[in-house]
């Protein structure tokens, strides 16, 4: 079942076209990966879908409803939730209160036991009552994921959730994401850590210079001429 549809999105910043006529659809309970070299427009695409940026043209549909002109908070309340590549924790709130926030606005009862379980799985339980300002970068990155998951979004869009994490931490994040997926969740993941990503996703999109240059199975990504060309000269091995 189609849950998200993006049609011909265009976003310019001054002279450059950050997102250039991108269209794709997302199925319910699917894990989609988005990759591409630095500056390809991946984060901008997320910002357009989550409403943080307005597209110059194009349409976005969530469950068939046109949400192109709705506000970011409105999209979040509809279950379209994103995390940030550059972490944005609520610094003066404790780790646990950071999880409280997305629930309290939805007037969902804060199930402390559930929050504790999630923090345990992510190795954050010891930091539970500490203001988020005092976390390490890796811990903030994991808190970002936890905050995205806590309100059980319909679609969770993660912007480089593995960035700066150790292999062990990537394992922790991967397993909570898998769990969410197995409970019926839908994921879109931007990542540069391709080896870890490819194991998780079912379908891949590749962007370069704002354009979608590949769409297909993860196994076929490395076979695409266009993708090889896009990554030429970068230090990423595909």
């Amino acid at each position, binding site marked *: 079942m189609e849950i998200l549809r993006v049609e011909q999105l265009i976003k310019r910043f001054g002279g450059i076209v950050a997102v250039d006529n991108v269209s794709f659809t997302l199925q319910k309970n699917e894990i989609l990966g988005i990759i591409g070299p630095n500056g390809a427009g991946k984060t901008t695409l997320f910002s357009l879908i989550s409403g943080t940026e307005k597209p110059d043209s194009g349409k976005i549909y969530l469950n068939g409803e046109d949400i192109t002109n709705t506000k970011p*908070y409105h999209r979040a309340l509809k279950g379209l939730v994103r995390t940030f590549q550059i972490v944005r924790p609520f610094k003066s709130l404790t780790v646990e209160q950071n999880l409280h926030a997305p629930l309290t606005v939805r*007037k969902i009862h804060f199930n402390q036991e559930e929050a504790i379980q999630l923090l345990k799985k992510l190795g954050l339980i010891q930091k539970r009552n500490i*203001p988020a300002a005092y976390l390490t970068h890796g811990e903030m990155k994991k808190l970002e994921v936890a905050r995205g998951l806590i309100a059980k979004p319909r679609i969770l869009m993660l912007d480089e959730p593995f960035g700066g994490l150790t292999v062990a931490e990537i394992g922790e994040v991967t397993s909570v994401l898998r769990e969410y997926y197995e409970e019926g969740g839908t994921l879109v993941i931007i990542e540069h850590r391709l080896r870890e990503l490819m194991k998780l996703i079912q379908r891949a999109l590749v962007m370069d210079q704002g354009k979608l240059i590949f769409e297909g199975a993860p196994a076929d990504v490395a076979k695409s001429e266009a993708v090889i060309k896009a990554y030429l000269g970068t230090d990423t091995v595909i």
Partner: protein
Amino acid sequence: MKRLDKIFVVTLLAVLAAMAVLPIALNLRFIIFILTLTNIFAMLAVSWNLLSGYMGLLSLGHSFFFAGGGYAAAILSISYGVPPVAAVFLGALVITGLGSLIGLPSLKLRGHFFALVTLIIPIIAYQVTNAIPQLGGHDGIFGIPSLFQSAEAFYLASLAAMAGSVMVSYLVMRSRLGIIFTCIKDDEIAAKAAGIDVPRYKLLGLAISIFIAGVAGAFYAYLNGVISPATYELEKASLPLLMTLLGGRATILGPVVGAYIIEILIETLKIEVLVRARLLIYSALALLIFMIFPSGIVGFLRRKVYGDTAG
């Protein structure tokens, strides 16, 4: 409740009781007037702290809400015969409506626009009030009936209102609103991404803050029996800011502690030269706060008692 918290609450109630009984029992007439004034400014500081300390919306023009509450209450009781106690709350409501309306457009813009708007509004209000005879013009409104017959009753009412405003800010910050306000202060973009309708909650915080400032202003008008455009002046706008920064911003009791220290300083150092040099003294005080107590006195003490990371 933790043991430490229990001791804290009991101590607080004891202090409040002592503040209610002692000045009256000892019949300290002059001090009662000053303490009443201090309670009024403490309320103003509590109001500022809610908006600027907890929500991070810097208000440089709280004197507008303060004076506005005073004017509205004075006009309601003189021209419309509203009983004084009702006029305090109605007046606060009037300025809450007006202030929210004026503040609304700037809440949608980035933070510093709000600060800029609040800086300008008291100046405009000063000119407008000066020019309108119905508002008393330059001389202001005289002969405001007294809120209470005795100074003692007025003092107790101001103490109760001040304690009430502290209670309101405590309850607000303990509720879901407290979390939402803190999210907005920490990171607006992340707050929106978490599902928070930022302008709406900013407006709510602004309204609560204005209401408290308006009540304080109404008390001020009744205490003096007169309200004039001078109430809009910069000094009244900077007082709550200084009091809160000294006592500890984003702490519940900080504004009250700061208000008491600064008012006592002002009243004990009431020498002509010092009065003239007020702005200089305030600035020096502000610098001192930033250097010695960056998180204010209450923030400083809290770290001493609860350890480094207590929320």
